[in-house]
């Protein structure tokens, strides 16, 4: 069974990798977006799903990744690889610097503090001449959707692999303990501060790299789009939709929701966001623990699964 699962996953990865060679340009572009958003969602899963800290600062990591890459390439004329590293370093450094004070806060206080960061960052960046102020930066043009697609896929596989490692490692068990009861985790001799900062840095690493790839692909960034707080909201929704604290839930959730919003946007353009909201409300009511739980629960108890959920969560 384990081997079968592994073979299936490998096959899926190869299948996904083959997409740009057979599919239309539109589909490949949709794929790049979906893969990058899935990577961001997986990053949020590390801090939000495993550690239980509802971060609204992940879009800041994404933004710093885009700016690190854009400044290195547009202002310093460095190659893309160096730019990507610069973006990653910037994101992780920021997570380490601000994680230590902010991760002392719990629950809603933590959420609000990170939300503040997102708002402040775009204002700060808009005043820095080197970062293009509020006009933004234009990166050198590179036509290579296949490369961007494969790069995004590799990043998503790396992020998912990291989460799979988390799920069975000592470090990951420590994070889950923090989520379940932080005081008890401390009593068990877990250095909670170090663990939380580590989780945030991991999330920042993947988010900023995703930002770097996106910046070079789109070739234009400005403070508004780089530090867009709704991007963070999407990460939260997609994680919850798929199943927080699981390995494949967030990936599945973000693929499904990306597809749903794409289809809605092209078929019923004007009221697409209304339908999107409707889908999310239905999801919260009928499968509050995510898609993965739905699959397991449905196999176990059929349609009664929905009734059980509604009763359990008093809806």
């Amino acid at each position, binding site marked *: 069974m384990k081997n079968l699962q592994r073979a299936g996953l490998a096959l899926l990865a190869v299948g996904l990798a083959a997409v740009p060679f057979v599919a239309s340009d539109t589909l490949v572009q949709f794929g790049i977006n979906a893969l990058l958003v899935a990577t961001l969602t997986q990053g949020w899963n590390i801090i939000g799903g495993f550690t239980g800290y509802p971060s609204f600062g992940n879009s800041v990591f994404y933004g710093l990744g885009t700016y690190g890459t854009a400044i290195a390439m547009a202002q310093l004329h460095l190659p893309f690889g160096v730019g990507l590293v610069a973006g990653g370093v910037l994101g992780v450094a920021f997570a380490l610097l601000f994680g230590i004070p902010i991760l002392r806060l719990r629950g809603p206080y933590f959420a609000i503090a990170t939300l503040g960061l997102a708002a402040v960052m775009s204002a700060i960046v808009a005043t820095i001449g080197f970062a293009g102020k509020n006009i933004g930066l234009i990166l050198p043009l590179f036509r290579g959707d296949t490369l961007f697609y494969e790069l995004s896929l590799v990043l998503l596989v790396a992020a998912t692999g990291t989460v799979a490692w988390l799920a069975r490692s*000592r470090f990951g068990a420590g994070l889950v303990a923090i989520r379940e009861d932080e005081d008890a985790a401390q009593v068990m001799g877990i250095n909670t501060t170090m663990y939380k900062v580590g989780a945030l840095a991991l999330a920042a690493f993947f988010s900023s790299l995703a930002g770097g790839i996106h910046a070079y692909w789109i070739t234009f960034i400005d403070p508004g789009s780089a530090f867009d707080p709704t991007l963070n909201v999407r990460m939260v929704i997609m994680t919850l939709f798929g199943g927080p604290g699981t390995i494949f839930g967030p990936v599945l959730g973000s693929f499904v929701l990306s597809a749903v919003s794409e289809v809605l946007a092209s078929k019923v353009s004007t009221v697409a966001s209304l339908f999107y909201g409707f889908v999310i409300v239905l999801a919260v009511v009928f499968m509050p623990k995510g898609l993965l739980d739905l699959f397991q629960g449905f196999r176990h108890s059929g349609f009664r699964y929905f009734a059980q959920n509604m009763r359990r969560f008093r809806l």
Partner: protein
Amino acid sequence: MSAPLLEIAGLSAGYGEVPVLSGVGLVIQPGEIVTLVGSNGAGKTTLLRAVSRVIAGRGTLRFDGHDLLTHTPEQVFGLGLVQVPEGRQLFDKMSVEDNLKMGAYRRKDEAGIARSFERVYELFPRMKERRTQIAGSLSGGEQQMCAIARALMAAPKLLAVDEMSLGLAPVVVDQLLAVLAEIRKQGVTVLLVEQDVFAAFTVADRGYVMETGRIVREGAISVLSNDPEVQKAYLGVQ
């Protein structure tokens, strides 16, 4: 006389600007059961917090030959000073067995952990029966057993139990006291912090009485329980 396992002298600690403990002294020899009693707000839990380095303190704080003041809370835990916190603090949504595993989180000796599991299940057969049950669904007494079992999984030298009797039926408290005596037989020193003086005195060798952040009485249980002041204040003897 051998070196004490825990030695506290002239310890002062508090929260921010508010001092709670002033000049507290307490000594525990290896293999003893020592109880710290006192009414609500006397500073008992604060003392435990200072000892486990969760709050800052000044004075002498030595455990098993180490100066605790230079250690972080995680390091204190690693030295073998393990707490069963007030209110138990179990991982409510995890199974009993996973809770116990979390107790051994910092240990890497697989064989030793397996032995601890055996020993703990022998001590608490009920925990073995319920090992797959979610900890939050246990009864109060079982949760306290689970909390003590979890602490034992860390292979402590000193087990500090805070308010073990809180919210439990007297008959359950008696069972737990018997377990503490058994734990001591297996070589673990116990510090029992209690409001229930009666219960604490049935199992301890020596006791300390705390009032408003100071130790006001100390001695063998036989002496303390005959002390008229202690009798009047804590044992209800007129």
